[in-house]
């Protein structure tokens, strides 16, 4: 009696899991297949499930529509802001993990609060300032603005990581006469590399995905890929295949990184509310 019931429950569970996977993955399937359709096939009514795939859309967006350039812009911005966040953030994280000083709690709060500030609050003042300074439409403006979310992530995750390194190592090094900087650089930082890697991947993903700053601050030369993708929606004849080809090109790198860091993505999105 119990066995068939249990087997049925197992089947139900299996089906539910398949349904969840299908729900998550189907939009990506549709995105990729649409990107392989010509405009005529994409505008078939009812939508075509079986068709002859073509790579023409990819060819066109990459070489004729400047999507290739915008992808390079995205890479430059995401890599630079991540590197900068790691350079600035790891010493700060080490200090938060190891040193005692007044106002530490408040500083900590302030770093974390940045998670909550909407980019739309900063976008206009930064637009005006960057125009004054001649930084409008440059990679630098975006690289600096993305620090508002990449730096807190690096600081949060690396502080956690530094705390998990035994203090005895630091103490032994002090007895050897090593300076604070030397201890950080040569002993703790190498041991904290897993945290640095995770926070770098998360910074990269979040910078890569950002739209609002990019849309307002970088209209032409420094335009990033998401901002480029939405320009296809303007005009009368919406090129579905091209839009989906661009979307696929944008999404593939983040999905790969997200799968690599899948265990930590939730931690990054919650800024550590959940381990």
């Amino acid at each position: 009696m119990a066995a068939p019931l249990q087997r049925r429950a197992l089947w139900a569970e299996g089906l539910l899991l398949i349904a969840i996977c299908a729900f998550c993955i189907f939009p990506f399937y549709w995105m990729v297949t649409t990107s392989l359709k010509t405009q005529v096939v994409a505008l078939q009514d009812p939508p075509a499930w079986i068709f002859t795939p073509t790579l023409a859309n990819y060819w066109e967006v990459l070489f004729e529509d400047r999507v290739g350039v915008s992808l390079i812009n995205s890479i430059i911005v995401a890599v630079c802001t991540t590197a900068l966040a790691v350079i600035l953030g790891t010493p700060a994280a080490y200090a938060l993990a190891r040193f005692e000083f007044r106002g530490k709690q408040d500083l900590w709060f302030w770093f974390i609060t940045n998670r909550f500030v909407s980019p739309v609050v900063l976008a206009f003042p930064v637009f005006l300032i960057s125009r004054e300074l001649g930084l409008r439409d440059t990679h630098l403006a975006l690289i600096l603005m993305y620090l508002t979310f990449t730096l807190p992530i690096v600081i949060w995750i690396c502080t956690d990581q530094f705390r998990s390194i035994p203090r005895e190592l630091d103490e032994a090094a002090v007895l050897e006469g090593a300076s604070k900087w030397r201890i950080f650089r040569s002993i703790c930082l190498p041991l904290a590399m897993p945290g640095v890697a995770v926070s770098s991947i998360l910074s990269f993903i979040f910078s890569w995905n950002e739209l609002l700053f990019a849309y307002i601050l970088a209209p032409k030369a420094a335009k990033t890929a998401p901002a480029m993708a939405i320009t296809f929606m303007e005009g009368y004849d919406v090129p579905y295949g091209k839009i989906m080809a661009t979307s696929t090109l944008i999404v593939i790198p983040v999905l790969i990184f997200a799968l690599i860091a899948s265990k930590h993505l939730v931690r990054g999105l919650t800024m550590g509310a959940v381990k």
Partner: protein
Amino acid sequence: MIAHVRRKTIFAFLGPAVAALLLVGIAPLLYAVWKSLHDFNLTKQAQTKFVGLENYWTVLTDPTFWQAMGRTATLFLISVPIQLALGLLIAIVLHRPGLTLFKTLTRLSLVLPMATTYAVVGLLAQVMLNQKYGVVNQMLGWIGIDPINFIGDPTNAFIAVIIWDIWQWTPFVALVLLAGLSTVPPEIEEAAQLETKSQWLVFRFVQLPFLIPSLVAVLILRTADTLKLFDMPFTMTRGGPGSATEFIAVLIERVGNRQFDIGLASAQAIIMLAITIFLARLYIRFFYREVN
């Protein structure tokens, strides 16, 4: 011994990060506060003048602002309970032993929606929800439902935003709650399972207490992210049709970027920030009490 660190050393470690965040986070904010006290329109810069708190008064008495806030709250109140219910169900299923390979695969596919570029989600929504060529309407046709004009109709467009919000963030809620479930000590869970056959009792009295922190985290993070929500509705509908999907961040973007009224947009942004900070403080009080 370690505790004795010279002030100069602390400054050297923390200074650069603090300076950077002051430069990109606080300086623009102060500039926004300054601009919010002015009648400042990009197209009429010559007529810029100091108006004190007038912009704030305009915003606080402006029905457009409160309608956008209301829409944002409505979105939150509809989509977050659904995300919580579905997310809890998924988390509980994934937490149960058995079918390990299946569950690992499910967990991996759950990661995909929340990592997806938000702007791309809006584009995908456009393509999949199209009245004539959209696959969603085709599927609805299979079960006998007539094609729905998702993007062109105010109510349907709002529903479409809710659906995609659920698609993108239910996995997030599920994984946060799953992490919460894994904090329940296995001995206690097993002991409870021996005591009673009722899954509900196990959930209510054993698992739920351990889930409270995750639930509060989800609620407050979803609140902050709903207030920030811009990319997806913007790429899908540009806030339309009419102002049906003009959530608060989309409204501020329109006033500042498409009406060039930066003074007013700044005032709106500052008021929204005040609301956000209030909620962030609440959050921090719950979770970041102790450092070390």
